[in-house]
């Protein structure tokens, strides 16, 4: 976690809108210390994006359907399985073990993707 420069912080309130803004950004980041362990995969135009994603072990990946048609997320080795996601619905899964997880859409199996979980 990055720390604010104390000298800059002292000047901040009076003269630097920029410093204020960055302080606000940092506050947001520090409020969610797991930010680095969360990732999102979007479903757009019958495709997972990114189709291949690398995360650290323990990371939670959220799949969001942004199409007008329902999709699902089904692991090829049965380690996870969403229900059908209608428009804007999400499915999250925490990857607790390192490895490569291939998945596809149970309705449109031409749609495939891969999550690589690094140790």
């Amino acid at each position: 976690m990055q720390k604010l420069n104390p000298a800059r912080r002292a000047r901040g309130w009076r003269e630097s809108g920029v410093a204020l803004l960055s302080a606000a950004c940092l506050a947001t980041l520090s409020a969610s210390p797991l930010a680095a362990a969360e990732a999102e995969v979007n479903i757009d135009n019958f495709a997972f994006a990114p189709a291949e994603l690398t995360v650290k072990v323990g990371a939670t990946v959220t799949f969001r359907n942004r199409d007008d048609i329902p999709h699902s997320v089904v692991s090829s080795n049965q380690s996870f399985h969403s229900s059908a996601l209608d428009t804007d619905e999400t499915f999250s899964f925490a990857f607790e073990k390192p490895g490569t997880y291939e998945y596809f859409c149970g309705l449109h199996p031409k749609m495939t993707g891969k999550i690589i979980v690094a140790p």
Partner: protein
Amino acid sequence: MSIEIDGKKIDRRGALECMVWAGAGVLWTLDGGVPTSKLLPVGGAAQAAEKAQKGFSFLQISDSHIGFNKPANPNPLGTLQEAIDKVNSLPEKPAFMIHTGDITHLSKPEQFDDAEKAIGEAKLDVHYVPGEHDVIDEQNGQAYLERFGKGAKGAGWRSFDAGGAHFIGLVNVVNLKSGGLGFLGDEQLAWLADDLKGKSASTPIIVFAHIPLWAVYPEWGWGTDDSAKALALLKRFGSVTVLNGHIHQLMQKVEGNVAFHTAMSTAFPQPAPGTAPSPGPMLVAADKLRSVLGVTRVEYWPGKAALAITDSSLASS
């Protein structure tokens, strides 16, 4: 069994000989989807021949997507009702109806209820097969099977005879494989082989399934991985008609004795293969929507190999 003709009793063998000899003198009528044959009085042979040649017709509707509510059609129940009104206004009542899947959008009970109620207004027997949108309940298709699976095998495949033709409803939307297309599976293919066993090669075969049984556009998943195995089993038949849905547009192809045809949706159109970034719903101007939705009427004429297929849009009178 014996039948009386002109006051003369004839036995089953005699009746069959008579049917063969008279040919067109057998009038097929369909009562609630169940065909019964009647031997006509010999004296009225000419009239009988004329009647028998009329054949019979049935309707195909597809992809009603009840529950869809996006701009491509905010009210698919309304357009389904319009399609059923169209069926009801036909001058000749069809023998029955087939629905080639995606009855609902999300397999929800109220969506099935609304669809059944609207389709029921046609007061026809309906033979369903599921689309991928009908088997996404938490129990992987149980909701569909509880409603429409009576008498069906496996995930809902079935066959029946009507008007001298053999109808086969196949399911190619379950147990789909990563990277694949529609899928029939070995269990269903074994059933199909058995179902066709002993059928005369001259029996007209009508196959219906949701996803096309030919490679319309595999890049968009518009095809069925193991359809070649099913078509191989149908090869010996002189007349095979394959009716599909799924792609929400008309498409047809003839290959040997097999005529392939896809129907319009009653809900929303989809783009022609490869003309859009994805096969998702296609937005057309509101006043154009009904010209790209519709129903299909299929007519079977005894003695003619090809069935007459007529598509009419909801915009046509």
